[in-house]
């Protein structure tokens, strides 16, 4: 995965997240790779399910966030960051 690809994917993931959070300025935070899904964005696990659908719709069925998370431990899911999601999406969409 090139730096350009990773950076472009992160920007798209952050933009797609606003479909869940609305304007993150309201929360007073800027989305960075370290922003946590649950604690910083105040989202719930059920929002991860919705976000999985949003990602699959945008990037295609190969980007299966639920499948990725099914291999994680609970603490990893609780501490999931936007950077984790962007890295996963980047690897699945990496141009060959």
């Amino acid at each position: 995965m090139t730096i350009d690809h990773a950076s472009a994917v992160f920007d798209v993931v952050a933009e797609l997240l606003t479909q869940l959070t609305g304007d993150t300025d309201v929360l007073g935070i800027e989305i960075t790779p370290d922003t946590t899904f649950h604690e910083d964005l105040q989202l719930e696990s059920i929002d991860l399910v919705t976000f999985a659908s949003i990602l699959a719709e945008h990037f295609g069925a190969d980007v299966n966030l639920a499948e990725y998370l099914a291999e994680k431990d609970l603490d990893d899911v609780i501490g999931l960051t936007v950077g984790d999601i962007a890295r996963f999406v980047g690897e699945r969409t990496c141009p060959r």
Partner: protein
Amino acid sequence: MTVNGLRTNVQLVPAGGTETVVFLHGMGTDSLASFYLTLAPPVAAAGIDVISYDLRGHGKTERPERGYTLGDFVADLDDLLRQLGVDRPVHLVGNSFGGTLAYSYAVANPSRVRSIVCIESEPATEVWAEKMSQILAHTVRFLQVEESFDWIEANFGAHHRRLARMAAERITSTKMAEEVPLGPLLTWEQVAAIGCPVLSILGSHGYQADDLEALTSLLPHGELHVFEGQGHSVLVEQHREVRELVLKWVERHAA
């Protein structure tokens, strides 16, 4: 989609298979996410159609003030399967209250259930109702005290504080705590007459720890799997092992 009059969040993972698993989550802080983010992907990858949905009052499904008897939950599942056109018997996989719902559904609709996997669950007998009444009443009292949230955060972290807030909001804004234990309750004869295979997965320190053998011995086709040293959160803490148990179970009990 609208199920039994309520806007209901449904997630389908069609696999084009010959078997269907319906995941039924637990009460309070739970939602379809606990299954969707653990068991649903590998089950679908095994060629099994997956249906999961947020129970009434939970997740992204509508939350009416009233309507939380087991009869309401059974009617929801029945209407959901009817609307989805599922005409073959299904495997019900329930976590905690979801397993209780699975038993009640199987008693009401025996021909529609191929098998049951219940995780830290028991059927809705008078014993269950008494236990649920006490747990829910204690939970309501506990969550009405602000210091309880500080204690939860100190012992389990900020994430669990937020979950407790969510549970408090759900419980206090509805009649859930009062109505759920009302049943309709099952007699032991009704439970013993459940004809489909039942796998009961328990933690040795879970909610059924005091009665690990009795329930399973009652069921004519019951099996028991106990995780030693495990509390009530079997699904999230042992999800890889539970996944293997469920996959083997469905394979064994396929049509």
